[in-house]
């Protein structure tokens, strides 16, 4: 792998990190979906870079799957969903945004330290990417637990999957094809089920606020 590909990979890694922070800070659902699509695009870019650098053909396929699934289909479904459900805004976050940002920074440092002992084994030049991937996963997780509406939670879930995918491509040059296909299928089916599910929630509560879903507390 030449230094340039390493740099390009690093660039995509930092773009992913930036998008993860942007998602954490974003209040509007529509922008959130667009950010998710951009994240997918960055993922496609990094996958193609790795594929080109290592000459592994199956990575081109998985980049293609990512492009179709995460840049086109899922954002399309999400946009349709929020149009049909007529939800555009998501003002409330459970923690205020600057605090979330600080927590996000702590998470990045934590993730990097966690990945540090492993990164040294990476054959790839872009060694820090595993840490970045883990940071993206943790930040998506943070986003899921701090959002009160259903759609942002789902986007957080999908963003987490993106982070994992990045870990797979950057650290190991992609998983075996059959596994990647299976994962893609799971994500797609999961998305469709979630779509169905949101209509059920709306039908029941006239709202997509997850706060309604707090009846089953431990007593």
């Amino acid at each position, binding site marked *: 792998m030449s*230094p*340039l590909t390493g*740099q*390009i990979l*690093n*660039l995509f*890694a*930092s*773009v992913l*990190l*930036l998008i993860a*922070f942007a998602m954490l*800070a974003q209040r509007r659902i529509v922008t959130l979906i667009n950010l998710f699509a951009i994240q997918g695009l960055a993922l496609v870019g990094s996958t193609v870079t790795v594929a080109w650098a290592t000459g592994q053909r199956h990575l081109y396929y998985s980049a293609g799957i990512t492009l179709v699934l995460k840049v086109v289909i899922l954002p399309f479904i999400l946009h349709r969903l929020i149009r049909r459900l007529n939800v555009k805004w998501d003002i409330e976050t459970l923690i205020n*945004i*600057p605090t979330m*940002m600080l927590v996000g*920074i702590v998470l*990045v*440092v934590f993730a*990097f330290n966690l990945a540090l002992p492993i990164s040294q084994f990476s054959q790839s030049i*872009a060694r*820090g*990417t595993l*840490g*970045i991937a883990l940071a993206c996963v943790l930040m998506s997780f943070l986003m899921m637990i701090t959002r009160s509406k259903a759609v942002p939670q789902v986007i957080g879930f999908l963003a987490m999957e993106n982070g994992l995918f990045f870990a797979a491509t950057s650290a190991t040059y992609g998983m075996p094809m059959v596994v990647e296909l299976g994962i893609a299928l799971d994500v797609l089916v999961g998305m469709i089920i979630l779509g169905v599910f949101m209509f059920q929630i709306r039908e029941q509560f006239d709202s997509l606020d997850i706060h309604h879903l707090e009846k089953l507390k431990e007593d």
Partner: protein
Amino acid sequence: MNLEGFLAQLLAVAAALAGAPLLSGWVNQCRAWLQNRRAPPITMPFRTLHKLFWKESVIAHDASPIFRVTPYIVFGCMLLACLIIPTLSTNLPLAPAADAIALVGLFGVARLFISLAAMDIGTSFGTLGARREMLVGFLAEPAFLMVVFTASLISSSTSLATTVSTLGHREFAILPSLAFAGLAFTMVSLAENARVPVDNPATHLELTMIHEALILEYSGRHLALIEWAASLKLFAYSCAGFAIFFPWGIAEASDSVAFLWALPALAAKLAVGGFALALIETILAKMRIFRVPEFLATAFLLGVLAILVHLLLGA
């Protein structure tokens, strides 16, 4: 201190004093074009300064000496800032005296005095402005420091001259950290220079104004000095940005040919930068004052990200 360095320093002073109002004029001109207005001439700031210098300076009865000395201190700080930033050459005799952190400190001193002076008279507008100025400064400074640290980490020095020569000579590499830092720097500059998303420099009729509220009580030569200082600040910020992010074209030590090229290069960079600023000001709408902390927090975050990316990815 060799003669060449002395000359370079002298030229830098001249360039700053003359270039700063021109830059302000250029930005105003571009903005007028972009907004389909008839543009004022580029020398308009000079005419304003000239007019103000010949006017009488009215000072409130209860004004303390702070109020009187502030314009000179602010002007001095800004001029000094322009001197330690390598605008034309890295071979500046004054440059070793102060590094990038001291630069932030200089801006801080100027901010402190102008806020004190604004509160000195005791009008409500002055106090309001001072409070907002301190809020912006309080949030913008750490972000600015993060940008400075990123550049320092990459070049392993906090001296701006060294940064310029290191960054100007490294072989081509994609550095996401510098890109993030550049974004953060742009946001900080907009806030610090009272530009559109944060403050509107074109009017002092808004309740949410910051900069204009601070200097409402000044008139005559005091006002002229403060206005000049404001344009010097913009100039200093632009040059600092160019020095870190576009270090090409700045002359190295003992390179006379390059030195000749440095002035047109700087002019070209300033022209482009000024146009970009005007474009930003035209496109963006002024945000509510309550959103300013968030805006600056984003800048800070970008700065931190830049450092993180550099430390973690080495890029």
